[in-house]
């Protein structure tokens, strides 16, 4: 598969015969992505095969356990999650139509928003009411749907900023260079290694603001890796990324799992999720309506209803809809859901 990292390169490539390898659309790009065949991928599949695909099911080794979390905005309940467990060392996708409350749920878990009620624990430690910075220091690091590259810092500075425990980040420590020069050197080596993996090493001295949208997504992911997270939370990593880059992005996400990290990512495109995730959680109207392995969860009636509407096959031109009895039956069905 082509491994372009810069949009510039993609246009160059399309002038040469191998151009046929460059996917035309995102869907095509996604179909070309294959599940990685690593031990970690197989292990994840094996462990989750034994888990029953029902909402709120308990997992053998949960890294994150969420209980009864609610977030209300005025009269609207944006998030209402009864129970959710996220298995350690696998890729869990959180999908749902627009407005399902996925990002709000994400913000709650990472400390960027406060719930009206509920609790959750990460690696056994309760994280309710903990500040966003502390959540990150505990090893749960997130990225954003609208990428937050720090524009007027260089790519390398972006990376170095993310490293934890630098004594030079203390006001008094910062004045004495010998205290932090060593740490800085070690961090730089590590940063260059990660940047090389994301093929951003050539851009290390460029301002992050000069990167393309896709490169910023990669930088944000690379930056999150600098913190040595145990769990990485990606908010719509594929949004606004060109098809060629989507493939490499998906490979990077799988590589995170293969390196032993737990990945939870939000996505509204079901297609994108199918190929790489080990477990899928579906949200609609703030609630979790289904969870299970990617192959079977798409067939779940609740998921189809969430995406297409429960009555998507009802003919609105049908005269029987005028019959009060039929309307009453449909309404009753709606209530039951």
């Amino acid at each position, binding site marked *: 598969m082509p491994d372009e990292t810069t949009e510039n390169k993609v246009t160059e490539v399309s002038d040469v015969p191998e151009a046929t390898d460059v996917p035309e659309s995102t869907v095509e790009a996604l179909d070309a992505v294959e599940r990685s065949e690593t031990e970690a991928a197989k292990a994840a599949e094996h462990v989750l095969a034994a888990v029953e695909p029902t909402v709120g099911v308990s997992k053998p080794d949960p890294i994150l356990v969420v209980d009864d979390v609610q977030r209300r905005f005025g009269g609207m309940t944006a998030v209402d999650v009864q129970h959710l467990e996220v298995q350690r060392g696998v890729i869990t996708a959180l999908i749902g139509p627009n407005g399902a409350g996925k990002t709000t749920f994400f913000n709650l878990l990472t400390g960027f928003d406060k719930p009206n009620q509920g609790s959750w624990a990460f690696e056994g430690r309760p994280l309710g009411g903990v500040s*966003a910075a502390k959540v990150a*220091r505990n090893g749960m690091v997130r990225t954003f749907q609208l990428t937050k590259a720090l*524009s*007027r*810092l260089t790519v390398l500075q972006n990376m170095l*900023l993310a490293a934890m425990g630098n004594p030079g980040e203390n*006001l008094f420590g910062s004045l004495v260079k010998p205290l*932090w020069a060593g740490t800085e050197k070690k961090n730089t080596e590590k940063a260059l290694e990660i940047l090389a993996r994301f093929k951003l090493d050539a851009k290390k001295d460029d301002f992050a*603001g*000069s990167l393309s949208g896709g490169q910023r997504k990669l930088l944000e992911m690379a930056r999150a890796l600098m913190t040595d997270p145990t769990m990485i939370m990606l908010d719509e990593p594929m949004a606004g990324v060109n098809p060629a880059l989507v493939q490499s992005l998906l490979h990077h996400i799988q590589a995170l799992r293969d390196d032993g990290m737990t990945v939870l990512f939000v996505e509204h495109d079901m297609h994108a999720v199918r190929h790489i995730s080990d477990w899928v959680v579906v949200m609609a109207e703030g609630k979790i309506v289904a969870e299970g392995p990617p192959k079977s969860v798409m067939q779940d009636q609740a998921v189809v209803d969430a995406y297409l509407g429960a009555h998507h096959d009802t003919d609105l031109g049908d005269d029987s809809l005028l019959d009060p009895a039929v309307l009453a039956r449909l309404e009753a069905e709606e209530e039951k859901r």
Partner: protein
Amino acid sequence: MELSRILTQALAELIAPTTAAIALAAIGLNLHFGFTGLLNMGQAGFMLLGAYGFGIATISGAPFWLALLISLAAGALFALILGAPTLQLRGDYLAIVTISAAEIIRMLGRATVFQEYTGGAAGLTGGSFKSTFQELSFLPAPPERGAFGPLEYVFTGSDSWWTRLFAWAVVLIAVVFVWLLTRSPWGRVLKGIREDEDAVRALGKNVFSYKMQALVLGGMCGSLAGMLYVLPRSVAPDAMGRSLTFFAWTVLLLGGAATLFGPVLGSMLFYAVYMLLRAGMREGLEGVVSATMVEQIGGLLVGVTLMLLVIFRPQGILGNKKELAFDAR
């Protein structure tokens, strides 16, 4: 020769203690705005508080260095009080709170309630608080005078070489301090916060604490600048109002925010040109406009300069145009 007199006056402004004081105030603003993105619209409030702190402490009998520490502590305390409720909120709130807090300090200063300490609207006369500073001088005692080129001042006194030497030494120390801070990982965190504080928060940094540290350090620069500002004159609350804040902002934006020498260069250039304009107008338009009108036109031109700067050269003289190209946040 009228022209040489005007030029000498402008040259004198380059090294005037007031120029050094505003440079230091702009260095503080640079820590706030240039490096951290905090909008402090009340730097004059920090300066006035620093001036009162130094003046009142000295009058009460404190030795020089203790009075200087009290001046610094007043700035730090003011920053803590202003920062605690506002730094968790969006940036604009700090701007609103600082501009009104600075006015409150000025109003309290000129209020009759505290007249016993602050001297009310008349302020503290220069003679009452400058003796400890002038005793520190190792230069010849007055009335000994010294000339350097066309500039001639007493060695020790209010408007003296000693005041200039001390003021610029303090500015130099502040520049070195800011250089040490901003080249370090600590400075990098500040710049990250300036770009996007949520991103920095997501990387595990305590954004509130860093913003507070920057606000306090910049505020201490401000209060020390206030002390330098009153060394050659008296403490007069009405002379340290909003316009002084905007002078400091003009100086910062002229020199270039987020640069090391921007505030110093900006201050020198600003005061030299400001003097050149006013002296030029006084001589050239004598009989056409009165002396008071010259001051008013001068103030007006500062406002116009500030606007033109922000529109046409937001990066200032020393700033990097490329850095400002990606302003999309």
